[in-house]
């Protein structure tokens, strides 16, 4: 598969403060990637460098194998940034027609309306008179107007209500099915988990995890089996001898067994006859993983 984005050892320093610290990753055609992280993790700075709006202090970035500010790159990307950008004095339709003309193979106005849910009334309204939600829709339409191969969004759903958010992600899935490469930043874990095939987890300017949502969850082994028993001391001793158990402890009246293989632990419970009742299997949740990873990183510093 073709490599669309290549970021190699990129750092960005603002007045002695390292906003991005030696970040490397590569994104292939058709991937849907979430850049996830708390505020100030370096997501927007990374996006800005990928778009050629900022120059890295060190390192090298390429989009489609070219410098991000190359005209050929500009023709293949569509962007929606955090600031809601509008051009005063033009009606939505006039603006879309104008921007479409910048690109060699633009989407038709009809397709744009279909994808973004702009209404007939929206089209006749002047850009400066649109509501926040309508402006977002317009920005989305502007981002798609050139029929881009690579779509980059910085915090796309901030300020959207639930209906428009659902609609937005539905459209993104549709675009992903067409083979478009999509990169978006978010600090909503749920969004990253639901939409992305791959998550780049940023913290303090570095990537601390890179993988599918499932891999990220699995990596930190938050899976556990818990049960109640009349003799917790006995079960602790018995189970702790087995290598499949990574950690075991008693919490309230329950014994918690942390493991990477819950099935094996279940079998053990009956083999060792620990008298387990009310057995529960707990799968790791992404937000727990997220919290744990970002906390670990803080403690390490």
């Amino acid at each position, binding site marked *: 598969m073709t490599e669309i984005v290549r970021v190699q050892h990129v750092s960005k320093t603002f007045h002695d403060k390292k906003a991005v610290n030696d970040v490397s990753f590569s994104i292939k055609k058709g991937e849907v990637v979430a850049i996830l992280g708390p505020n100030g993790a370096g997501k927007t700075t990374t996006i800005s460098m990928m778009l050629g709006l900022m120059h890295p202090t060190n390192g090298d970035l390429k989009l489609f194998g070219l410098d991000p500010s190359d005209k050929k790159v*500009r023709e293949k990307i569509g962007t929606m*940034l955090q600031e809601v950008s*509008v051009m005063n*004095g*033009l009606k939505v339709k006039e603006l879309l027609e104008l921007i479409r*003309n*910048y690109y060699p193979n633009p989407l038709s106005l009809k397709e744009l309306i279909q994808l973004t849910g702009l209404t007939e009334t929206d089209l006749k309204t002047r850009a400066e008179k649109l509501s926040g939600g309508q402006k977002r829709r317009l920005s989305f339409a502007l981002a798609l107007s050139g029929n881009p191969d690579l779509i980059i969004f910085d915090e796309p759903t901030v300020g959207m209500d639930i209906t428009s958010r659902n609609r937005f992600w539905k459209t993104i899935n549709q675009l992903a099915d067409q083979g478009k490469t999509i990169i978006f930043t978010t600090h909503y874990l749920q969004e990253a988990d639901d939409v992305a095939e791959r998550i780049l987890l940023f913290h303090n300017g570095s990537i601390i995890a890179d993988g599918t949502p499932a891999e990220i969850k699995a990596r930190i082994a938050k899976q556990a089996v818990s049960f109640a028993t009349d003799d917790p001391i006995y079960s602790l001793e018995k189970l702790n001898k087995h290598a499949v158990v990574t950690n075991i402890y008693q919490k309230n009246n329950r014994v918690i067994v942390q493991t990477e293989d819950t099935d094996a632990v279940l079998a053990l419970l009956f083999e060792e006859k620990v008298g387990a009742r009310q057995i529960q299997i707990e799968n790791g949740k992404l937000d727990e993983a997220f919290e744990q990873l970002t906390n670990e990183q803080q403690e390490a510093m």
Partner: protein
Amino acid sequence: MKILRLQCKAEMLRVLRNPYFVFWSLLMPIVFYFIFTKVVNTGAPDKTEWQAHYLMSMTSFSVMGSSIMTLGIRMVQERQQGWATFMRLTPLSDTVYFFAQMMGQTVIHLFSIVVIFTAGAIINGVTLSFTQWIFSGLWILLASIPFLGLGTLIGLMRRVETAAGVSNVLYMAMAVAGGMWMPLEIMPKIMQNIGKWLPSYNFGNGAWEIVQGNAPEWRNILILIAYLVLFMLLSKYIRRKQEAV
């Protein structure tokens, strides 16, 4: 080429729909013209000469205003609202974008000139020879370029409020001190001496000379060119300082 044409068209539409432009650059000069040639008796010795002179003053006043204010404030707005960033991310080249803005602005100036000249002809029956109409119009169009330079300089400011305030003060001060509201000759000597070095006076004077049947003075042209160079160098210097990220 098609993009340039569309971009120019869009830029013109935007200016025409701007209520500030319509008020300050079309309505105000015409109202002033009406007041100072019809309502108030200025006691000018030669009435027809004064009517032609003041028509040139008001047209220059209008074009100077839209060069400084419309252009400058819009540039700040576009940057503040993130539009300028969006445009940088499109394949449209910066040169085409800038050129289209200037072209759009020039066409708008031409429009203002025609409207205000027509108003003068209707209100006072100002009669100039065909070449005088053409040359005074052309002069106002071309000699306004230094004010476009000043407009882009104001466009480098960070906040719309500052840009609006500064450009308003500059605009009014230059109009009054440059003899656009009342002739320089009736002002104190010291004001006259200062006024003659301002771009506004040299801008207006070219047109005043043309309606008198003369050519603009060399001095006017040289001073305007000097201001253009100054504004361009200044904006280049400031831009470089701002871009040091």
